[in-house]
């Protein structure tokens, strides 16, 4: 009988997805018990929000999720819009969708790079990062920033799209599509990757539902649960796209779905560019007064969107003041990050832990908030 050893994966470890720590108890090469130790990254986001004005929080919330900050802006804006009963202008809906889908592509590319990294296939991150950078270039042109855009605001978006940006976006989409063969060959058709991920970290539908796992984790069990379809926001009900699903529920299925979703995002953005009104306002003020004194009517609301990692939501309570009374963030990574790590890692081999975390798309800041 081998001895049980305790190993620390993270917080600063190349195999760790963000600054969390997983304590692994291993016997030989196999994990027998695992504990997530969060708290190394941001802490107190939700409390910080209660101390800032509604407007100031726009600079804080994107930081909850670095790879895909825009979803925070979106759910926050949606929550406030519901509380104020404000109608977002048509054009803003389409711009928001473009932003969100670009962000999804960027996040999926990064996740694919992460899977490459966890399997020792470093070419993948080396390729996806510069490709992702092209999307960041687009963000820079639209919002003025590459990562923290602070662009989707309550009432619409902060500025209209710059002239001619549609052409730039289409060029980037074409480019990413032109890379498809290479991505597929390098990652999805790769013998080693397939061998390493097939049958890895199988999550059954029952398990996923019980834990609250959404996103590709759930869709890989055959359930086409996607907020964009089940509770469409913006103008997702006006565009055509598919929600890819799989039945295997394993690591390979999950990252393949990510890749397929990336293709769907490209499809959505192209439709948005076609269908978006060329003219018209891009925001309405949700309250009169200076930003220092914006107030949101009292009430509570839960707003949710489909992030690249699953259902992402904010439960917002306003007491009618200039600051939120309470905001609770439902991070998509929370179930798989917390329950998943503790329930599903035991039985896994050590070298597969990083891969499991990668295919589940575990994102620390969504847990440390």
């Amino acid at each position, binding site marked *: 009988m081998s001895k049980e050893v305790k190993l620390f994966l993270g917080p600063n470890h190349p195999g760790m997805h963000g600054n969390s720590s997983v304590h692994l108890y291993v016997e030989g090469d196999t994990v027998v018990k695992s504990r997530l130790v969060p708290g190394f990254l941001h802490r107190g986001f939700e409390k910080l929000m209660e101390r800032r004005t509604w407007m100031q929080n726009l600079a804080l919330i994107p930081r909850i999720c670095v790879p895909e900050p825009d979803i925070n802006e979106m759910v926050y804006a949606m929550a406030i819009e519901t509380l104020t009963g404000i109608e977002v202008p048509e054009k803003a809906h389409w711009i928001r969708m473009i932003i969100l889908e670009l962000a999804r592509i960027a996040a999926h590319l990064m996740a694919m790079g992460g899977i490459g990294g966890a399997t020792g296939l470093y070419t993948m991150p080396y390729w996806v990062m510069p490709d992702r950078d092209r999307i960041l270039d687009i963000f820079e042109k639209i919002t003025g920033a590459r990562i923290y855009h*602070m662009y989707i605001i309550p009432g619409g978006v902060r500025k209209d799209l710059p002239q001619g940006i549609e052409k730039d976006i289409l060029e980037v989409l074409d480019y990413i599509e032109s890379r498809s063969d290479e991505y597929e060959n390098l990652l999805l*058709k790769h013998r080693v990757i397939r061998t390493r991920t097939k049958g890895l970290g199988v999550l059954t539908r029952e398990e996923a539902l019980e834990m609250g796992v959404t996103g590709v984790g759930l869709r890989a069990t055959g359930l086409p649960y996607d907020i964009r379809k089940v509770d469409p926001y913006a103008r997702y009900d006006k565009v055509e796209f598919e929600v890819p699903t*799989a039945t295997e529920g394993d690591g390979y299925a999950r990252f393949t779905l990510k890749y*397929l979703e990336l293709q769907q995002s490209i499809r959505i953005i192209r439709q948005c560019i076609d269908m978006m009104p060329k003219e018209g306002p891009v*925001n309405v*003020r949700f309250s009169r007064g*200076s930003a220092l004194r914006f107030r949101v009517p009292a009430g509570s609301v839960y707003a949710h969107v489909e992030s690249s990692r699953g259902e992402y939501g904010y439960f917002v309570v306003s007491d009618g003041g200039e600051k939120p009374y309470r905001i609770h963030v439902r991070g998509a990574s929370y179930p798989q990050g917390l329950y998943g790590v503790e329930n599903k890692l035991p039985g896994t081999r050590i070298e597969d832990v990083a891969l499991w975390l990668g295919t589940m798309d575990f994102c620390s800041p969504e847990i440390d908030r």
Partner: protein
Amino acid sequence: MSVYETFKKSFWGPTIAWKRLFTKPVTIRVPKVYREAAPRYRGFHVNDWELCSGCSTCSKVCPTDAIKMVPVDITVEPGKKAQRPAIDYGRCTFCAMCVDICTTGSLNMTREYIHISDDPNTFFFLPDETGIHHNNPPLGYQRDENSDLLDLERVEMEELPGEDRVDSFIEFVKGYSREQAIVEASRCVDCELCIDVCPANMDIPRYIESVYRDNTTEGVDWIYKTNPLPGVCGRVCTHKCETVCSIGHRGEPVAIRWLKRYIIDQESTEDIIRHAKEEIVKKSTGKVAIIGAGPSGLAAAYYLALMGYSITIFESKALPGGVMRYGIPRYRLPDEALDKDIEVIKALGVEIKCNTTVGKDITLDELKEKYDAVFLGTGFTTGRSTRVPGTDHKNVLMALPLLEKIRDYLRDPENAEKPPIPASLIVIGGGNVAMDVARSVARLQKMEGKKINVKVTSLESMEEMPADLEEIVEGKEEGIMFFPSRGPKEVVIKDGKIVGLKTVACTRVFDEEGRFNPQFDESDVTIIEGEMIVEAIGQAPDYSYLPEELSEKLEFVRGRLLVNEKGQTSIPWLFAGGDIVHGPDIIHGVADGHKAAIGIDEFLRNKEG
């Protein structure tokens, strides 16, 4: 669906990357490779010091406390503060909210992409007009109308339309509703620029905030700290504060005056009195006489009464209020608003002896005997004349006595003497008093069933006229005709009756140095027709109540009394304020009264000690 079959295993999969072995890497080597940032890039900040008012709104909106306002060595003008934002890039999130809220548009962001320095202190800097790295970086992120975080439009004040309001002397400004007041109050950015400009240094942002928080009771407290005539000032103050309000740089200034009125209109006189009484802080002994129940006299009385002094005001007119009661027309300042303010002052035990003219019914020497100190707030009571030929005609009147007559008549039409209501009137002057006369007579004409026929002529051009713009605009709406840039030459009299005013073109009012030095074009002569003329070219003080030996000891500067910063004249027991010190302006009078109260208290305590 099985995804295993979607992508079939490829023999070449692992080797696909090799073909890129010799392609050029995309690495950017900063700072050697120049990377042009996008036109909207949110880089470092630049601040145009000329435009910047030091309002500190950027630092208030900053979510990370990255902006600190630091004192700078510049000459301060009204509406500006000698401070500028310093930005700590260790904290900045580059959100650009400071740019979006900047009240003047002085703050912008550059397209600078990198900042490399061995010195960590360079990450905290004071922006100046030369840019951060002194290299005139191209501008990046700038605010536009979509991203603007200020509310530039004022909540419109409901007023009776011109054609309706000229039918009566009813107050035509309706006042804000609760909702409107709260929205208007929410536009304030709490920059405090208004405080310095307000002669009474009212804590405007605080009372505006109380409106925003729907707590007008608290608002009353803030107002009364420096101004016991809010009902009056909330209606007719010259609102200098609004001229510097930082929102006014790019939009309409906060309606400070109407918000003050809103607060006071919400609270009952009894409640205000209760508050005021709670403020009586210490019991001092001593008696102070105040001459004139105008703005300065009433203000001085209020604050002295709070300090516990026993106060008597001597007022020559039948009712207290001075210019507020007898000068300003009812449609702008109804008696009820003034009475409410005076009620509070009287409730503190201030005695107002009306119909008592100092110098006639009681002498200043007697006051000196009976009281420990005397405050003069006698105001400007006499009019100035153009002295052109014909002004001695009985139908050439002075503005103030006419306004007084009109107010007396409106108050008590049965017993008061009816003011003359000519079929056509010419008003000489371009100030607010001229507007008051013109608009009052227009109303009387209308009420008498006559056609409105009032003409205003002034030396100044339409743009230069000293009257408030709103007075001119409203006057026009009410049917007043304007004849600007004309100088009176002679009253034209035929068969003993006035038929008009001969005027010549005024080509210039002020000389290069800005001094009053009108120039005329004698060849351009016009006769403005009218049967009555009112001269409203300015008012002057009447010091006839001052005994000669006192007059000799007092110092005057161009007709005004010279006092120190506590309102004390060169005679220690004699204090003064208001028009006779600062010229005609209610809020100056209030401020003077407050200052003098502090001065008198100090003087009396020193005397006791």
